[in-house]
């Protein structure tokens, strides 16, 4: 018995410690009068109308290797549908997919032809650009004085949107066991859904995507109007998969 305890107590402590570090901490309730303001901050990171966005995209793999691509995203927050393409700086399209009710891969050059890649990328896009819901399951103050909301998803997962005092927004996707699955961090936002920089971390093996907004263009709405394209000036200087492949 003593031998068993000697083995299991440290393991139990380790599990409790890890759980404490990665699990969901309760939000401290705030004055109900502040709800409108907090909820507005929770909506701010996400697109409110259809947009075409062009990002410089940096990928960091588990071994630290970095790669860069250009990402194009046409996203409609009303339908939560989007089409995205990743291409090399030289213009060679590596990946092209669209998501509506199903995810359709139009082009995928290895190593971007794995179904898991398409699914992970779609999840990243939805998490970073589309609001997780209208009414949060909880709202209040979290760690470091950050204020935000928690939204329950139909799949049992939970999305947390927190705005820190310095204006940085953190979005976290929690699994059904309250483990953090993905993290998104955005620079302070000037306009709804148009962060100049976005960092997405997640997956297993772990990866990091860093997005820098190059161009944004509001697309025509039902009323037929469209905003002028915005160009964001930079601050500093394989075989193909079957076309139209569906991923259930």
């Amino acid at each position, binding site marked *: 018995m003593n031998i068993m305890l000697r083995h299991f107590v440290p393991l139990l402590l380790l599990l409790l410690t890890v759980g404490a570090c990665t699990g969901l901490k309760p939000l401290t309730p705030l004055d109900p009068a502040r709800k409108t303001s907090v909820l507005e901050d929770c909506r701010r990171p996400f697109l409110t109308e259809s947009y075409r966005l062009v990002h410089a995209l940096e990928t960091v793999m588990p071994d630290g290797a970095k790669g860069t691509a250009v990402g194009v995203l046409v996203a409609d927050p009303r339908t939560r549908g989007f089409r995205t393409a990743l291409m*090399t*700086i030289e213009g060679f399209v590596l990946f092209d997919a669209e998501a509506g009710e199903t995810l359709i891969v139009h082009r995928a050059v290895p190593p971007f032809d794995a179904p898991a890649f398409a699914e992970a990328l779609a999840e990243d896009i939805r998490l970073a650009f589309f609001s997780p819901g209208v009414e949060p399951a909880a709202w209040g103050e979290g760690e470091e004085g950050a204020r935000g909301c928690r939204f329950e998803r139909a799949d049992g997962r939970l999305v947390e949107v927190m705005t820190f005092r310095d204006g940085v927004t953190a979005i976290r996707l929690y699994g059904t066991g309250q483990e953090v699955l993905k993290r998104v961090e955005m620079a302070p936002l000037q306009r709804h859904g148009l962060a100049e920089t976005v960092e997405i971390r997640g997956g297993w093996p772990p990866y990091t995507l860093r997005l820098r907004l*190059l161009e944004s263009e509001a697309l025509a709405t039902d009323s037929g109007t469209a905003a002028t394209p915005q160009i964001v000036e*930079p601050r500093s200087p394989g075989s193909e998969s079957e076309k139209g492949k569906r991923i259930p």
Partner: protein
Amino acid sequence: MRGIFSGRAHRPVVPLFALILLLPLVVAWADSWEGLREASRRITSVEARFVQKKTLPMLAKPFVSEGRFFYQAPAQLRWEYDRPVRSVLIMNNGAVKRYLRDPAGWREDAGASLTAMRVVLEEIANWQQGRFDLNPHFQASLSTDPEPRVTLVPREPSWGKMIRQIELTLSREQAGVMKGVRLVEDERSFTDLSFSQIRTNRPLPASLFVNVE
């Protein structure tokens, strides 16, 4: 009467006369594979500016990039983008490296796309040497109207899924020089590269093909 036929103005007549005599040669360099190879053999280096326009169905207008291009015969290339994403792709006798500029400075890129770019760079080096018909994966054809143009079409369907065809537009005025490239992925997806300020056979520093800056 003063003019091109009087006094010092006589001088331009000789180069003009020489140009008229040479004109058939200048026009003819791109009329045959042998003409292309012969003209390219005389090119030891190329430096040019370029504008790249990427057209995709999902883009309302082409995505435009700009930069500089350097080639030193037989197999050194530097493909440098100034905007909107600063990057340098270097091929030095078969070794390919890409560098990217971020706020912390230049860093080496190790992305998966580098393997694909190695193939592309080797192909560009072949084109610069007039060896358009060397790659067994592509069927090359040459046309002269309206402009001298080499068209490369993949022989194998698997390649055709990635690139439908490559069109290389040659300069009538500068023998051995390409002035544009179009990579066609499908009917509505293509990349246009147009070169300007093209200078040939000037000595280029060896460091261009070794160091990022």
